[in-house]
């Protein structure tokens, strides 16, 4: 600390350019410092103080040096910044110190660019306005750069969104031109000079503040990064009082409701897909999406225009291709994705980013370019057994400048991908196996009970009848074959083939009748088959008859063919037999069906 103090005495600034950008709700302060070491010792740090009322709104602070090497300005380098607390300094100042890349010797020169972003630094005044009023805000700062060093020369520019300025502090060398107010140049300002200035101007830009934003980034190694963002939005400008008239708003939207904002634009990464926009009561249909190869633009309109003090909440979600954001190195995978919200010009009071890694990830490390709160959770999602590790990052006061890439590194075995499909497959497999076992198992309690025995017998009878039916149908098939052979005969005149068919049919019919006998024997012996037996017997008889008639017809036709008689008498004989055959066939079919129904 002593050294710091000492060094502070011997340093001073050669030139100082300030630009404050007030065109949005953020206050962006760009400072270009040309620093010269006028002291004796070489020093490695530059102190940057901010008054307390500013520092509590300070969201973002960077310092870069631009070393001038010849003509080409290049190699700008970000400096590490830390909070310090030097002793003996005026109170109500917050101190930051930027460490220089290399020590600055006596007489050394350096250009520093400092970029600071403040949120909630514009105060609406008046605090409550009606629908018809424009929104006026007040900005307060010092015309002189607050510094522990001597400032040789400085100028200060305030950039406003509109040329409409209610009032501003008129110092010497203050000039308003268009939408810019210039203070300075001032020269040789002693350390800790402070001259308050107040600018009161109209600003109708969206004062959208997300009270809470939860971003969930879920990685699926099947090829998708799903991002879900839950917004809790408020219009933080001047509060709206009095009537809200839709009529006025619709008729003259830029006069009656100038301070309201109706849409927000989210700039999503390219190839974003499956975009949705909804809130807790359903889809919100007022949105627009268009994109090219470098970005996807999503224009969303809240359900109602947001006037000052009005709140809303909604969720947007989109999927991104995995290979754009997930990379592999040394057996590790790392996710490289932006931190903040894709919405432009949004202040986020409290941002929580949850990175949900796939089930089975290990060795998780996170690297974020700015300080944040970080912890880990578990989340159970689709059919998880052990849960997915979730990295939670929390940061307050986030501005678009925080939209930087951060990395999450982890190890993940590709085989874990197949855990859930395999689980499903085995689940269904065991279900079916259980079904099969259930249908085949016998859950009868008493194996000797009369009903159980009867059931067993009945089953046997059933199989016997089924076999019987099979035999019958085969018989009928042979009959059909015989008929077919007769038709062939009339077509081709090949009597030999016909005879052969007849022979084959005879032999197979004989075999079938043997089978039939054994079956009938069984059926007759079984008491359970008593009720069905008459039908079966009848069927057998009929079938026999049918068979005989068919054979008769066959031999008649073949004979007639061989003798080439072909006379009327054979035809009439055949016809009479044919009638009987069809009648018998019908009966047999009927009987088969009756048996079938039993």
């Amino acid at each position, binding site marked *: 600390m002593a050294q710091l103090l000492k060094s502070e005495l011997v340093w001073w600034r050669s030139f100082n350019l300030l630009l404050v950008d007030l065109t949005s709700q953020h206050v962006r302060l760009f400072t270009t410092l040309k620093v010269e070491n006028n002291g004796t010792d070489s020093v490695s740090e530059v102190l940057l103080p901010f008054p307390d009322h500013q520092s509590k709104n300070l969201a973002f602070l960077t310092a870069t040096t631009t070393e001038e090497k010849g003509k080409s300005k290049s190699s700008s380098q970000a400096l590490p910044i830390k909070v310090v607390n030097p002793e003996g300094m005026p109170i109500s100042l917050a101190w930051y110190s930027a460490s220089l890349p290399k020590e600055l010797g006596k007489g050394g020169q350096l250009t520093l660019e400092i970029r600071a972003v403040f949120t909630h630094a514009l105060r609406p005044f008046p605090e409550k306005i009606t629908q018809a009023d424009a929104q006026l805000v007040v900005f307060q700062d010092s015309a002189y750069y607050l510094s522990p060093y001597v400032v040789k020369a400085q100028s200060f520019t305030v950039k406003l969104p509109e040329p409409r300025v209610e009032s501003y502090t008129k110092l010497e060398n203050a000039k308003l031109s268009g939408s810019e107010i210039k203070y300075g140049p001032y020269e040789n300002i002693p350390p800790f000079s402070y001259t308050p200035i107040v600018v009161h101007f109209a600003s109708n830009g969206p004062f959208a503040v997300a009270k809470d934003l939860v971003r969930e980034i879920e990685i699926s190694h099947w090829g998708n990064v799903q991002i879900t963002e839950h917004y809790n939005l408020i219009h933080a400008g001047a509060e709206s009082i009095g009537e809200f008239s839709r009529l006025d708003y619709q008729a003259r939207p830029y006069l009656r409701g100038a301070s309201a904002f109706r849409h927000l634009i989210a700039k999503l990464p390219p190839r974003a897909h499956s975009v949705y926009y909804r809130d807790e009561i359903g889809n919100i249909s007022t949105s627009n999406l268009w994109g090219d190869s470098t970005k996807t633009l999503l224009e969303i309109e809240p359900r109602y225009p947001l006037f000052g003090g*009005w709140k809303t909440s909604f969720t947007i979600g989109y999927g991104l291709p995995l290979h754009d954001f997930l990379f592999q190195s040394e057996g590790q995978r790392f996710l490289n994705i932006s931190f903040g919200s894709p919405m432009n010009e949004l202040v986020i009071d409290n941002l929580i980013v949850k990175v949900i890694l796939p089930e089975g990830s290990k060795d998780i490390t996170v690297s974020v370019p700015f300080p944040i709160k970080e912890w880990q959770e578990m989340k159970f999602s689709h059919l998880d057994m052990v849960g997915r590790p979730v990295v939670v990052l929390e940061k307050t006061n986030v501005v678009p400048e925080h939209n930087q890439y951060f990395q999450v590194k982890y190890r993940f075995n590709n085989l874990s991908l197949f855990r859930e499909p395999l689980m499903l497959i085995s689940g269904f497999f065991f279900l079916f196996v259980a079904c099969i076992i259930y249908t085949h198992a016998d859950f009868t309690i008493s194996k000797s009970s009369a009903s159980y025995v009867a059931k067993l017998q009945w089953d046997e009878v059933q199989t016997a009848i089924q076999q019987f039916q099979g035999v019958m149908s085969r018989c009928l098939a042979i009959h059909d074959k015989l008929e077919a052979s007769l038709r062939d005969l009339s077509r081709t005149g090949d009597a030999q083939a016909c005879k052969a068919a007849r022979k084959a049919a005879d032999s197979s019919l004989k075999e079938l009748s043997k089978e039939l006998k054994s079956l009938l024997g069984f059926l007759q012996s079984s008491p359970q088959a008593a009720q069905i037996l008459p039908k079966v017997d009848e069927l057998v008889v009929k079938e026999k008859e049918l068979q005989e008639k068919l054979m008769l017809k066959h031999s008649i036709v073949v004979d007639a063919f061989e003798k080439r008689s072909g006379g009327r008498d054979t035809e009439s004989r055949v016809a009479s037999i044919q009638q009987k055959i069809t009648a018998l066939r019908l009966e047999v079919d009927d009987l088969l069906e009756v048996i079938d129904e039993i």
Partner: protein
Amino acid sequence: MAAPETSPTPSSLRNAFGHVFSFFILILIGVLAFSIRLFSVIKYESVIHEFDPYFNYRVTQFLTKNGIYDFWNWFDDRTWYPLGRVIGGTVYPGLTLTAGTLWWLLNSLNIPLSVETVCVFTAPIFSAFASWATYLLTKEVKGAGAGLTAAALLAMVPSYISRSVAGSYDNEAVAIFALIFTFYLYIKTLNTGSLFYATLNSIAYFYMVCSWGGYTFIINLIPMHVLLCIVTGRYSSRLYIAYAPLVVLGTLLAALVPVVGFNAVMTSEHFASFLVFIIIHVVALVYYIKGILSPRMFKVAVMLVLSVGLVICCTVVAVLIALVASSPTKGWSGRSLSLLDPTYASKYIPIIASVSEHQPPTWPSYFMDLNILAFLVPAGIVACFLPLSDASSFVILYIVTSVYFSGVMVRLMLVLAPAACIMSGIALSGAFDVLTRSLKFQLPGTSEIFASDAVDTGSESVILNKDGAKEDKSEDSVKERPSKKSKKKEKEKEKEKEKEKEKEKENAGTLSSRSHAGTSSRRPLVLPVEASVIAIFLLVLLVAFYVVHCVWAAAEAYSAPSIVLTSQSPDGLHVFDDFREAYAWLSHNTDVDDKVASWWDYGYQTTAMANRTVIVDNNTWNNTHIATVGTAMSSPEKAAWEIFNSLDVKYVLVVFGGLVGYPSDDINKFLWMVRIGGGVFPHIKEPDYLRDGQYRIDSQATPTMLNCLMYKLSYYRFVETDGKGFDRVRRTEIGKKYFKLTHFEEVFTTHHWMVRIYKLKSPRNRIRGKTKKSKSKSSSTISSKSSRTRKKNPWN
């Protein structure tokens, strides 16, 4: 289900094939029933529909968040302010518990679906269940073929779709399944005489009681059927087993549901079941005594019992009638009474009459909701009579009663739909049976000539279907038989068994021969091939027409969620999302404890979507409270302010369709506000609002009308939109164009002006001194007015 693997004979394979085939047909029917109801999700979004479903959704949310015990004890202070409502004791919990259980199950399997998603898809899932239940029921009545046809018809009947599209999260969605399933189990018990099914039946009945007030239909229909069976001499022990446990167990279980409670024994709706319960016991006793006494002794006993029993019966009946008559509504609830006497509601309870779904339906709505079923039902009834069994007589009774009820209330069309599907399924499958059999029968004999490909391909599916069905039937009867027999065997001796079997066989034979009326006695009833081909073709055409109509109805007519409206304009689809815009505004930009007054239609939505306390909602349990709001809406501004202020109301919400032509807005509902308000507070007189017997808002309107709050809130600054104040719903220019509001201020109006929200201005400070004359005059008029209105205000 499993085919015997040892003997792969053709017929067993065919059986197995038929089984698997009908199993897959059933699965497909389930998929059809589910997916035809997804039009609303595809065309709109996955969102809860209409009014009542929002309440159910809110209750489900509460249940999933706070658990079952808090749910039973839930006193809801967000509604009926300042009275509140005991939700746990006044809601049918079946639907909520079902969806809650479903959600819990999915989440315990780590499938993270939101409550909303589960609620949205509950109805389609249960309609798949309902079609399966229809299959089971019809199978019990007429075999599997009819079952499959009926299930397919039910899967897409428009009447049922209208109440069970995805998002229509209402009691009916679950209750229709419960209804059909209860009927199935009753028939199953009746057919098998199994006590197991009887127990299941009472559990199914319990589920039905949990889900819907329509359970009274079951508890009246089943006793009617039992009575019918007894009267027609069909009493059997199976009937006793089907009925007695249902009454005892069912009533005990029903009394467990808080919303029913002692109503299960106290109200007249349940009276019939107890009466029939007594009768069936008497009949059972008579049959028993008849069995043990000789015929002569029996006659003596009958004489004795009749003389004594009649006296007792008379006294009991007299006491009961006296009890019932002593209550003003004769022990019937309003809705039931309006069922029995269709003119009752419009005479006495305007609040029931004001609901459009309680109106009688028009003829076109029968065609719209049932389509060809309306014409097939008579054929089905005839088919049911051909062999009149216990089961088919039940179905006939079901259709007759439900036709009557649907004629009284359009919403009960929903009860008619399953009956119509069953009947049409029976008719269609019977017709296909006859036609395809006559085809099949004639084809092999004349195959050379008639085996035309056209016939084959044309009717292939039909034949296949029928085959499968037939297989099922045979398999089924085979399955049933041993169980029946085993029962009997347990009861009786071996010798008797033989006789029994023979008898039964005869029965079965006659039954089966009759059941295939056209087909079993084939020869005379075989239709010519040409005729049957043409008939099949026409039938398929008819069914195709039905399918087209159902898909159209599902896609166009019944899928709108009614909170999002769309209109087709030349430059694409235009979405009117005003309701949710207003509710979202309320929920984000008003204080959590603010009270919002609106007509009762919007109560459920306001509590569910905006999470704000409402004065009245769609559970219209307190007529006086609704009348208060109606009175306020039909009073002049000052009086209305007094009423609303006394109710702590901060915001008033009105729905106004005049700008975009949305017809069901508050001005069109205004007549009910006046009528209901006037029914309780006589200073609201309907004639004051009428000109020539009509509600008018144009220049002919009465001054009372033009000064009432509803008119003012609806048309405030409306004239400035087009300079004339042309109302597109009423197709007229409004009567009073320029006026200012003194006690209300506009705080929000949605994009299409469909919802307008006003805030009650806080009372102006009393002004003393300064400019005495004018101010004192005005203040005195105000005070005198207020004193006058104070008398009118029911809350002081």
